[in-house]
Every structure is written in structure tokens, then in C-alpha cells.
């Protein structure tokens, strides 16, 4: 509605198509093409092969898929519980102190991931908490980095919930636990689903803290992809990246569907 003439619109749209194509679609397209390519000598890749995916299915790459999924699900669940707990507690408390604590829960999102990893490495390589070289330290690193996003999502949801519903429930004699379970949590459920989805996606792509703390037996997908491309095996790296993107998007879609079905079941 800003540009009215047919030719003006056509010009603006071709420009937009070019920019979106070059900046956002071309990167995804070349990685997809490379993951199926036998070789890439000329302008475009040549020779179709599923070899890179077959390699990714077993051995070290298969272990990386497992490590990433496990880390992502566990860290996201813990972050969801901790974030929702903190958001609910601070909302019940209210006031200036609660606002300041709220900012504190956001701080991990502002600190560079490499420094979070370095801190965990320094802190847990000495007594009293010796965790260096364990799987737990990777999960902890992911939890710390995504906790702020879970907290932020649930807080944003709670801010939109009118206290009236909860007050009515209390007046009708609902205990705090019953009120939380049957009134507050269902009202913020869409935000809980969204928080889990975002946390999981962030965990799947986490690299900075993971490279600082991962033990040899727990290599996540991003670390494995870096290992492959660093050795020059960019085609296998591309295949593993497509698997990472595919798993992340599938899970996000699944969570979105579950959230919608759940909301429908409640309302209808």
C-alpha cells in the first residue's frame, strides 16, 4: 500500500525476492545440495549420493545425534522447570526485589557462551564439585545458557495472565497447589511449550560452551560438524548439519502441533 503502481511493485518485489533468495534461501539450498553431492568441482555439485547420510547414521555421527538429543531434552526440561518455578515465585512475591532478581535470571543470556564454558571448566575441575570430563557438565552448560530464555518466556506468559482468574479460584476455596495446577499452569501452557521449543533449538545449536567442556565420549552435533569441516570433510559436515536442522525443525513443529491440539482439547 506504500507503492501503488504496477511497475513500482514489480521492482520492489523483484528486489525483495533477490535479497531473500541470496541471503536466506541460497545458504540452506547449498548445504542441502552439498549433503547429497558426490563431488563439487565446477559451479554446481555433481553426482547424487546418500553416502554422507549413511555415514552419519552410524558410528561417531550417530553417537553425536544421540548426545545432542539427550542433552537438548534433559537441559530444556530442567530449564523449563527451573524457569517456570522462578517466574511463578517472583510473580507471587512481587515488588522491587523480585524485579531485580528477575534481571539476575536474565543475565546468563548476556554472558558469552565461551566464558560460561570456561567458568564451568575452572569451577568443576576442583573440589568440592568435580565434574570435569563427565556428561553432566555438558548438560549443565546448556542448562545455564538456555535458562534465561525459559524464564523469559514463562514470565512473559504470566504477565499476560489476569490475576482475576486466580483470585476467583482462591475465593471459591481452591488451595494454592490446586490453583497452580488447574488455573495458572493451564493458562500459561502455550508459553511453556514455546519455552521448551526455543530452549531445545538453542541447545541443539550450542557450540561455544560445549567445545570448552565436552568429554571425548559425549560429542554433540555442532562439535562433530566442526570436527568434520575442520578436517576438510565438508560434505559429511553438510549432511550432519541437515540432520541437525531437520531434527530441530521437526521437534519445533511437533511442539507447535501438540500445543495447538492441547489448547483445542481444553477449549472445545
Amino acid at each position, binding site marked *: *500500500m*506504500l*507503492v501503488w503502481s504496477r511497475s513500482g511493485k514489480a521492482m*520492489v*518485489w523483484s528486489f*525483495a525476492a533477490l*535479497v531473500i533468495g541470496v*541471503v*536466506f534461501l541460497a*545458504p*540452506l539450498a*547449498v*548445504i542441502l545440495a*552439498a549433503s547429497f553431492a558426490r563431488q*563439487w568441482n*565446477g*559451479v*554446481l555439485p555433481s553426482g547424487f549420493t546418500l553416502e554422507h547420510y549413511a555415514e552419519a547414521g552410524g558410528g561417531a555421527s550417530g553417537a553425536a545425534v544421540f548426545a545432542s538429543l539427550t542433552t537438548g531434552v534433559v537441559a530444556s526440561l530442567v530449564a523449563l522447570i*527451573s524457569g517456570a*518455578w*522462578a517466574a511463578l*515465585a*517472583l510473580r507471587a*512475591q512481587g515488588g522491587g526485589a523480585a524485579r531485580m*532478581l528477575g*534481571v539476575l535470571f536474565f*543475565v*546468563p543470556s*548476556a*554472558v*558469552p*557462551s*565461551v*566464558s*560460561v564454558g*570456561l*567458568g*564451568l*571448566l*575452572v*569451577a568443576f575441575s576442583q573440589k568440592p564439585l568435580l565434574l570435569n570430563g563427565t556428561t553432566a557438565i555438558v548438560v*549443565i552448560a546448556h*542448562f*545455564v545458557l538456555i535458562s534465561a530464555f525459559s524464564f523469559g518466556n514463562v514470565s512473559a506468559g504470566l504477565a499476560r495472565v489476569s490475576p482475576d482468574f486466580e483470585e476467583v479460584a482462591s475465593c471459591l476455596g481452591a488451595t494454592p497447589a490446586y490453583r497452580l495446577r488447574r488455573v495458572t499452569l493451564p493458562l500459561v501452557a502455550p508459553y511453556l511449550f514455546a519455552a521448551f521449543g526455543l530452549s531445545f*533449538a538453542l541447545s541443539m*545449536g*550450542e*557450540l*561455544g560452551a560445549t*567445545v*570448552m567442556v565436552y568429554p571425548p565420549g559425549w560429542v554433540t552435533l*555442532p562439535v562433530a*560438524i*566442526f570436527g568434520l*569441516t*575442520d578436517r576438510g570433510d565438508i560434505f559429511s559436515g*553438510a549432511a550432519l*548439519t541437515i540432520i541437525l536442522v531437520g531434527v*530441530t*525443525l521437526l521437534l519445533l513443529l511437533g511442539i507447535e502441533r501438540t500445543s495447538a491440539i492441547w489448547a483445542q482439547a481444553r477449549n472445545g
Partner: protein
Amino acid sequence: MSDAAASPRGVKVDLGALWVAPPLIALAVLFLYPLALIAHAAVYDATDVVNLPAAWATLGSRAFVNALFNTAEIALAATAGSLALGLTLALIIAFVPFPGATFVARLIDTFIALPTFLATLAFTFLYGSAGVLNGALVQAFHLSDAPVHFLYSAWGVILAEVTVYSPFVLRPLLAAFSQVDRGQIEAASLLGARPWRIVRQIILPAALPAAIAGGSLCLLLTVNEFGIVLFIGAKGVITLPLLIYDKAIQESDYQAACVIAMVNVALSLGLFGLYRVAARRLGA
């Protein structure tokens, strides 16, 4: 005044405040305690003796100064680029909508959920010395060498960061644009205002809070970016996060790594404070 009114329930309020303890303890043990130990390790050397000269030497080293300069240059350029690209796309999607514009906006939005190093890997195939662009140029002009080399310089990092961080600007801008009164734009247009004047006088003022919030978030994320720089792996492009990784993992020089980490954390927290203030002041 509210204290006086609440005093009969004072005990209950105090107990209620304890509910925040479990997640707070988790944050303290897993995040604040490690941060404190980084500060401690920054001034103590490997033999656990205070060694301030070593800390000063790290701060004065060419590697650190270069990394600080690179980080600032890359972050500022990438943020400016993300703002320009995000604003352009948001203007087109919101005010010159094409069929499927909403779908495209959602597609770009999913980039927020994807790992950042994806952009670098893609750039290797697109603009690397054996990539699509160089392959096409060599073939078209019968060159003997690949003519395009920007990927292995700061430009490669900047352009990759613009790709992954412009969606962070696009999202708040689209939200802000959806609040702009369409009637006002149509009236201005009917009265003969050129599109550029409408953008400057009606749309941009309305989008300023969202642009500042999105831009400062970009600045924070680009200062902290690690994956893109690691994957490009150019010798001349070392930023603060990459230098911390090099010192700790490659050289096992933990004191130097912790000194640089303190600087990086301070820089990030400063930008985070700026972002909070900007977001609150402007209500974005």
C-alpha cells in the same frame, strides 16, 4: 503504607519469598560461582600465587588488543548491516506485501532457531575459493585463480553475522509496523506524499523503539558470537570469544583465558544493561 497494611501477614510474605530459593541456588552454584572463579583465576597463576604482572601482560599483548579491535569492528559493522537488511525487508513485507509475504516472514524467523555456524558452512560452498561464485567467475572469464576472497577476512564474518542476526531485527520491526495506522499512510499517499517521505515521517518514527531494541540485541549477540568465527577459521580474524577458546583449550593458559573472559563478560554485561535500559525507556 502497604507495608503497614500487610503487617499482619508479614510472616507469610517472608515465607513466600523463600519459594524463589531453589532456582536461585541453581543459578548461584552453576553460573555465579563459576563466574566468580573466573575472576579469581584471572589474578592467580597456575601455581595458585597472585600474579598481577601476568594479567597486565595479557591485557597489553598484541593478540588481545587485536581481538578487542576485531570484536568491536565486526560487531558494529554486522549490527549496522542487520539493521539495514532487517529494516528493508520489514518495510517491504509490511507495506508492499506480496503473495506469501507472511510465509516468507515465518521462514526468515526460523533462522533464529538455527545454529549460527550454518551460515559460515553455507558461505564456504557459496563464496569459498572452490565455491559457486568463484566457480562461475572462473568459468565465465577463463581465469586461472579464484577472484573472490572476502570470506577469509573480517568481511566473511560480518556478512555471515548479518545473515543470522537480521531476523532478530526483522521480528520486532514487523511487530511495530503492524501497529502503524494504515489509514494515515493511505491519507498521506492520497494527498500526494511520495513513498520515501511517508517512510521517513510516519513509519520510521513509529519503528524507532523496535529498531533500537533489535539493534542493541544484535550488538550483544555479535560481540558474543563464536561459531561463525570458529568455522571461518581465518588466522587474521580472531575475536575475544575465539581468543579465550584458543588460550584455554589450545594453549592451556587458563590465567590469560580468564583475564580475557573478564573483559568480554564486562563488555557483554555493559551492552546488556544498555539493551535493558533502551527496551524499558522505549517500551519495546
